[in-house]
């Protein structure tokens, strides 16, 4: 018995409206390719490049619990702000973030990262210094590599001390394109 798209949509909307979903997600199209975007009632929880539902659903469940449901409404705000960003009409994101289940060092690094302005870059070492751990550049690199909310938490703006781009979990090509979009390259 096939569930019609309309019935399916109504169920997903009701689940969202009743606040029964721990994490709602959807696939958002972008110039960087499809993004799997997930949000809770606390805020944006993740943006993943190259969606792979089987892997991603389990990862989402580990963040906030098993009530993970595709729910386009849950990510409406994020979708709108991302569209504006990629269209060059938005320089800063106003989305609340859900950083639960992350170690406190990671959270403090990500909070500092969020303050790196549009169109500018900083270095791993400088970010480490800003959280009071000047010798932790490598650990900061690991936090960037595992950043679960790229683009909005702009790890693409963090480069090596020599100006070398170093790396990007979504692929170096995306890092270059994001920096070009922002006029930083």
């Amino acid at each position, binding site marked *: *018995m*096939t*569930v019609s798209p309309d*019935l*399916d949509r*109504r*169920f997903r909307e*009701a*689940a969202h409206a*009743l606040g*029964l*979903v*721990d994490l709602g997600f959807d696939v958002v199209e972008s110039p960087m390719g499809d993004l799997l975007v997930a949000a809770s009632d606390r805020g944006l929880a993740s943006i993943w490049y190259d969606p792979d*539902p089987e892997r991603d*659903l*389990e990862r*989402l*469940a580990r963040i906030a*619990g*098993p*009530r*993970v*449901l*595709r729910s386009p409404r849950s990510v409406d705000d994020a979708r709108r702000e991302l569209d504006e960003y990629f269209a060059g009409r938005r320089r800063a994101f106003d989305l609340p973030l859900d950083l639960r289940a992350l170690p406190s060092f990671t959270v403090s690094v990500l909070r500092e990262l969020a303050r790196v302005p549009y169109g500018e870059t900083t270095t791993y070492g400088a970010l480490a210094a800003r959280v009071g751990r000047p010798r932790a550049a490598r650990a900061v690199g690991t936090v960037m590599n595992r950043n679960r909310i790229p683009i909005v938490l702009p790890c693409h703006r963090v480069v090596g001390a020599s100006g070398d781009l170093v790396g990007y979990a979504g692929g170096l090509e995306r890092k270059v394109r994001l920096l070009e979009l922002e006029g930083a390259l």
Partner: protein
Amino acid sequence: MMHEVSIPPFELFYEEHRSQVLGLLRRRLGAARAEDAFQETFLRALQAYGRLEHGEHLRAWVLTIARNVAVDTLRRTRSQHELVETGADDDLPAYEELAELTDGLPRKERAAVVLRYGYDLSYDQIAAALGSSEDAARQAASAGVRRLRRRITP
């Protein structure tokens, strides 16, 4: 030792069972009323999902919720005559022995006994399936067991 099955993300659970749930509800309620009942079934399941202790027997669990939603729907619409069909059909395998043994128990007691002792579900899961409180689920299971005991003991 029993192997605990972890709870799948709700999206996967929903995708796996939605067709069967809709089929059951259509057979019992007709196409028009089945749609609301479908929503109600998965909303009840979603509400309880975060409290599940393991991922076993989820199919039996959601079909039990669907059956109860169907009964509630029929009651609400006062179409009591349609209830005659709802006895033994379909989809539940596994607990045949218990099913036979519990045949004839009041509906809630039977469902509670089968889910508790046939499927080893916890009382909060049973409560979700029956649309009742955890206490009511516990009482229904023990009332069912007492009734069975009386029936078996000469």
